[in-house]
């Protein structure tokens, strides 16, 4: 059974369907990549999984349990799902260490010292321990992304959702993030990543799901999608990106 099973997921904003029957599975230990043009509903898809956005219909099973029901403990669900935001969303008033330790103290109930040790372990894992006393404003984009990842990993989530993790980074930093994701994948971390960055996608996955007009149009190997595809939106998306890269 997949860790996340999404079936016929629909989300309407003001009557307009942004997601119009999405089916996606994410297996344990997998790195699933969803690509698609801007505004195709990629971010909405991620936000439906942890209920930051309420789905209009369809089902999302996480660890075999439906997450869209009214009796679901949303806070408990969110603690099992790490979320990485486009703009990193580090807490500006907290140091790197406190950013990473906050959830451990306030959500997992750890003592300050224990939480700091755990946070430091995660920061060390992502080569950020040396920056633990710095504040977010003093970090580069790539460093912020690492701290955001460390903050998510510290909570020991079953899966990490990554929302356009390279959109605010330059190409060099984007490649570093790709290497980092591959390393975490090697360590068994499950991830679902939405992106429109083809170079980044090809660096972290062989297969991608292509989302457009509210549905997954195709899920295939990137090498297949690069070829002259019959579906015009797929052809436009991948061939345009290939030219630009």
């Amino acid at each position, binding site marked *: 059974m997949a860790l996340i099973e999404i079936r016929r997921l629909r989300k309407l904003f003001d009557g307009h369907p942004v997601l119009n029957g999405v089916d996606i599975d994410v297996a344990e230990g997998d790195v699933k990549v969803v690509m698609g043009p801007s505004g195709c509903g990629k971010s909405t898809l991620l936000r439906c999984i942890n209920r930051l956005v309420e789905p209009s219909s369809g089902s999302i099973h996480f660890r075999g349990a439906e997450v869209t029901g009214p009796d679901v403990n949303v806070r408990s669900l*969110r603690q099992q799902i790490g979320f990485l935001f486009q703009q990193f969303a580090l807490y500006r*008033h907290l140091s790197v260490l406190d950013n990473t330790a906050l959830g451990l103290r306030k959500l997992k109930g750890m003592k300050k010292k224990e939480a700091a040790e755990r946070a430091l372990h995660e920061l060390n894992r992502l080569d950020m321990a040396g920056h633990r006393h710095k504040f977010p404003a003093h970090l580069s984009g790539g460093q912020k992304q690492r701290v955001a990842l460390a903050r998510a990993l510290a909570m020991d989530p079953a899966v990490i959702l990554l929302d356009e993790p390279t959109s605010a980074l330059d190409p060099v930093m984007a490649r570093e993030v790709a290497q980092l994701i591959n390393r975490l994948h090697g360590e068994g971390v499950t991830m679902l990543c939405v992106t429109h960055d083809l170079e980044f996608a090809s660096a972290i996955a062989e297969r991608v799901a292509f989302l457009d007009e509210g549905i997954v149009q195709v899920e295939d190997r990137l090498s297949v999608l690069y070829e002259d595809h019959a579906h015009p939106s797929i052809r436009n998306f991948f061939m345009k990106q290939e030219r630009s890269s």
Partner: protein
Amino acid sequence: MWAEFFRDLVDQGPLIMRGLGDSLLLTAIVSLTGFFLGLVVFYFRHCQFAIIRLILRGYISFFIGMPLIVLLFLMYYGLPPWGVSLSPFSVAVIGFTFNVAAYNAAYLTTAYHALDSAELEAARAAGFRPFQVFRLITLPQVLRFSVPALTNQVIRNLKDSSVAFLIQFNDFFSRVQELAATNFMFFRAYLFAAVVYLLLVMVLVLIARQIERRVMIPGVYIAPESLGSSAV
């Protein structure tokens, strides 16, 4: 003439010192009560219930819009016929608190708009309760951004405390007024009052700047004028 004035000042010294103490006490009390009520108003100003948000918006507009002296007169002279008779000190504390809380809530609300909404969403995504998001993410930042405006409000409270003498509260200014009325040296008396207020304000400004330096978020700069700190 100045020697004569200072002789009278020394004679009236105990009363003037008591008035000064009462002015400082009133300032301290209304700064605290106005701060905490302002926090409560700010918190509920962003709650999920539209009717509460509307009421509190009305509260802020009403008390910012109404001159403080009108509010004090309403309570001190207007309420006794209805059977509610309060001491000048009580009227001053209550009136100032409502007024100051409205201003403070407005400052905090302005600072709230300087927050990065992604941080709040990240905290919700992590599984924090709404009140935890408020306490751990919103409030620490909003308070830091608001320090210039909030400390300026304390300075304004000190200066505004002088209007309480109009409802028979024997503050510093009313004692100086009495001194001037006995020796008719109005210019010297009011100049003396001005110098004392100025010195007190200077002390408060120094304390305020110290607080600002201590609580500022490294690398984060919010233009003071965008947060209402130009109030003084």
